[in-house]
């Protein structure tokens, strides 16, 4: 069992919304056609001509206090190594309680297995000595960084120490570990 506490930062200053992360993830994780584990969110605010645009690459927030894990009646949704929120498909009944519980819309039913699927933060890579996720690997602007939140020398910890960052819907109390750098 990993002693790490995996986290991800997405730099909203450099992300251009090219969707390479989405395609990279689909290829790496064999995500079914028509579905996605990560996605691009674009928000335009202000009144013309004073407009501002934010672009984010979003996915499961791997919350420290995940409502999906609490809602799951079979123990299928659980905290895996490094605190990652994972799904054991063999235990999943497809009751969709976790989908209803997730404030981020990060989960869906895989039509092939009829069980719930979501971002694993490439646990199969991180836990086997490959220190990057596929979305991070493919990102042309190096906006995505994964690392150990508890290691002050990790790039993630250093970025969070040096830059202002925010999480999504912090009022839900889920304590997300997906941080967006301002």
């Amino acid at each position, binding site marked *: 069992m990993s002693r790490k506490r995996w986290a991800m930062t997405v730099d909203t200053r450099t992300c251009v919304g090219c969707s390479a992360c989405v395609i990279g993830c689909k290829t790496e994780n064999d995500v079914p056609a028509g579905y996605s584990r990560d996605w691009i969110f674009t928000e335009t605010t202000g009144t013309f001509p004073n407009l501002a645009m934010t672009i984010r690459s979003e996915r499961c927030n791997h919350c420290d206090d995940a409502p999906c894990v609490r809602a799951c009646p079979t123990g299928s949704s659980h905290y895996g190594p490094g605190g990652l929120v994972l799904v054991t498909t063999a235990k999943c009944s497809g009751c*969709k309680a976790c989908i209803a519980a997730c404030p981020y819309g990060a989960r869906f039913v895989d039509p092939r297995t009829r069980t719930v699927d979501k971002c694993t933060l490439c646990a199969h890579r991180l836990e086997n000595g490959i220190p990057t996720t596929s979305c991070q690997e493919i990102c042309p602007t190096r906006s995505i960084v994964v690392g150990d939140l508890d290691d002050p020398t990790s790039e993630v910890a250093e970025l969070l120490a040096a830059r202002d960052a925010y999480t999504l819907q912090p009022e839900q109390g889920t304590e997300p570990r997906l941080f967006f750098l301002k």
Partner: protein
Amino acid sequence: MPETTTTRANPLIDPSLHVWGPEVALYLFLGGLVAGVMVLVAWRRLRHPEVTMSRALALAPWSVPLLLSAGMLCLWLDLANRFNAYRFYFIFRVYSPMSWGAWILVAIYPVSVAFAWTVLPGDIAARWRRRLGSLARLGDWAQERAPSLARAQLALGVLLGIYTGILLAALAARPLWNSAVLGPLFLVSGLSSGAAFLLLLRLAAGERDTLVHTDMLLIVVEIVLIGLWFVTLASGGAGTQAAARLVFGGDYTAAFWTLVVALGLVTPLAGEWIERRHGMLPGRASAVLVLLGGLALRWIVVDAGQHAAEIARIALH
């Protein structure tokens, strides 16, 4: 007004979450109705053990396992991976309302059958006893514990009724559902549906009168709880207030106020009141309306609650 776009298009999630369909609404309705029948008949048994029940009322508890099975069939049909349904019973998850529900449902079967046996009319009990042979001893065992079984039936009925609301209310991500009033509201609505279901049976005049009186009280309490539910929504954050607007000028306004409030609560309440005031034996029309109103309430709450997720997200930006 910010403009947002997303590349995500996962079916059932986008453009607005819709993971639970009519099967879940129907199950919540049947669960509430069953809870109502359990509580009302057990209460009657505990309060007036000396009064003989009419044949219809004495047989009514057998509807509990039957209707519950129909409800559980609905739940099973809603599962995406039905072959893994047995997984619910390999574990108990204390923070998962659905896990609580799964275990409450199986606890109800033995208790409700044993309770139903204890109130069975004498001639039918004698006939079954002959057919059951040595198994009839189980019936004797139940008969000796009749008051305890009635209390267990009452407690499980209350748990089931509240649970149908908590299942939705525990989801903080869905602002329309995330209200502490939803549990009591669904319990009272379930009790009212149970009373209406019993009123469709061929009961004795005294029983009908008591039930109608009880139902009127329950409807009044339900109207108050719906009011309180709106107060909790209106006093919430921007997302919660946006969710409330679904039934105040939004997509679900017409359905909610006509089907649930006007036809499901106010009309049957007025009908029952007029019947009692004029000393008439209450008819079945009000009961049918209460049942349809109970179903409409669940359907609209389940559907609108999922729609509200998207509305709230937009409102928060």
